[in-house]
């Protein structure tokens, strides 16, 4: 897919939570095609500590409003700067980068897709769920967070499919981690897509492997270029080779990686 560098205009920037903002960006031109699971690199200027671009996953693409949504977790100087952007400001964005989740074949007899997200890892699942629903499939969401207040965009997820929740403090949903949720015992799924902290994705991948369910994971290794030039963001394959997360991923079928070796 052709990649672009665009000067985008902020339409909205909502602080959903002390540690998250939802940044919405638009352009005069029609936004290029973007796939769920792909990411963008945002340039954050005016500080020596934000030298490199910030890789952020695509949260949603609103074709009606020609808007790109980025759910940003405030981690360091770059993401905190992004939280200060006001409507009308210009942000330089490289997109779309990497490979998205595998969309099921329209003729597929696979019907039930489970999307498992933890923390800011829920971000790409919103767009993936929307795309699945648009294609006539049934997405189920299993979302994990520390507590009720840390669950982002719940209403948007509920419009797309059934939502199951775990919180570490038990403040809503079932108590514990996503892999403890009863839905995994009570329902059977054809495909699992997951994004979140690596220990969570490893646990989800183990569950999928134990139950012979195909599984794709989305990684967030630290990276510089985002286009396969610097070779900094590597992950080990099952054969013990280093591959770039930015170009071979960020979405990988778990069969490709060394995690379950």
């Amino acid at each position, binding site marked *: 897919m*052709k*990649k*672009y*560098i665009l000067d985008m205009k902020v339409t909205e920037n909502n602080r959903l939570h002390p540690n998250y903002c939802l940044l919405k960006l638009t352009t005069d031109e029609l936004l290029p095609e973007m796939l769920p699971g792909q990411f963008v690199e945002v*340039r954050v200027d005016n500080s*020596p*500590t934000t*030298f*490199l*671009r910030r890789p952020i996953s695509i949260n949603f693409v609103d074709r009606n409003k020609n808007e790109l949504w980025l759910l940003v977790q405030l981690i360091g100087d770059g993401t905190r700067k992004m939280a200060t952007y006001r409507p009308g400001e210009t942000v330089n964005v*490289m997109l779309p980068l990497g490979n998205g989740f595998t969309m099921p074949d329209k003729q597929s007899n696979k019907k039930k897709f489970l999307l498992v997200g933890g923390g800011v890892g829920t971000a790409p699942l919103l767009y993936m769920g929307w795309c699945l629903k648009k294609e006539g499939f049934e997405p189920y969401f299993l979302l994990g967070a520390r507590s009720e207040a840390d669950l982002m965009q719940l209403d948007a997820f509920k419009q797309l499919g059934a939502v199951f929740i775990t919180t570490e403090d038990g403040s809503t949903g079932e108590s514990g981690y996503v892999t403890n949720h009863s839905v995994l015992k009570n329902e059977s799924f054809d495909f699992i897509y997951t994004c979140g902290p690596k220990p969570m994705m490893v646990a989800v991948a183990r569950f999928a492997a134990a139950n012979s369910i195909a599984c794709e994971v989305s990684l967030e*290794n*630290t*990276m*510089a*270029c*985002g*286009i*396969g*030039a*610097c*070779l*900094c*963001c*590597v*992950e*080990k394959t099952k054969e*013990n*080779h*280093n591959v770039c997360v930015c170009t071979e991923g960020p979405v990988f079928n778990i069969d490709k990686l060394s995690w379950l070796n």
Partner: protein
Amino acid sequence: MAKLNVNIGDLHLKNPVMTASGTFGYGTEYADFIDIERLGGIFVKGTTHELREGNNYPRMAETPSGMLNAVGLQNKGADYFIEHIYPEIKDLDTNMIVNVSGSSVDSYVACAEKIAGLQNIPAIELNISCPNVKQGGMAFGVTCAGASEVVRAVRKVYPKTLIVKLSPNVTDITEIARAVEAEGADSVSLINTLLGMAIDVEKRKPVLSTVTGGLSGPCVKPVALRMVWQTFKAVQIPIIGLGGIASWQDAVEFLLAGATAIQIGTYNFVDPTISIQVIDGLNAYCDRHGFQSVDQLVGALDC
């Protein structure tokens, strides 16, 4: 419109702006953003005789106005390059220059010999300055004896333009530059990355898997510029300057300090179009100051 073409030995460049090894892949990675054939040259990713997996993740740490890397020369080896990558890049209308590295004199020679057989690769850049490999790399580039030994051996098997990439991690870079000039190098490129490190204070651990790594980006530019200026006064062969170039003004500084051409490295990650902006900026600068040719700037520092 100033004359922008310059020569490095027998190598003819349509302009002095090239991209640095390890920051520009094989050029094609950037083709969506710029016309890569407008560049004076592209230094492709460091290539070794045998496949190298590189170092373990994490390999990168962002630092003030720059970054550390510890990639460790990950590449699929010279044979893979010749079979799979060379056919894709050989007809590009720019100079495709292979950065050659190794872990022993023999492995440098073996790689250089293979690349010498490729008709459309007009030059190699001998990397005796990679700080991220345990054997070879910078070990050759930090002593005159080591640098001389590897350049002498490669010179015997490599008849085309031989550029030697120097390490800044030395007491006196001019001694190394003189040593490789004496062994027949056609040009020196400087600087490679500066050895540095970063620590995660919460974990009380190094950020990089290798503890230390190579520092690059605008933070190293003053050091690189100083070394180019010192080397310009010490050798007769043309110098290719690099280290933190992020604008046409930076490029002009390197030319004035004595570089005949320049490479843009880390800043390609921040702005993939920077190299083209630098070409256009250099041209406008020459016109504004009445220089008919960009080579009039080389070493023209008034001091």
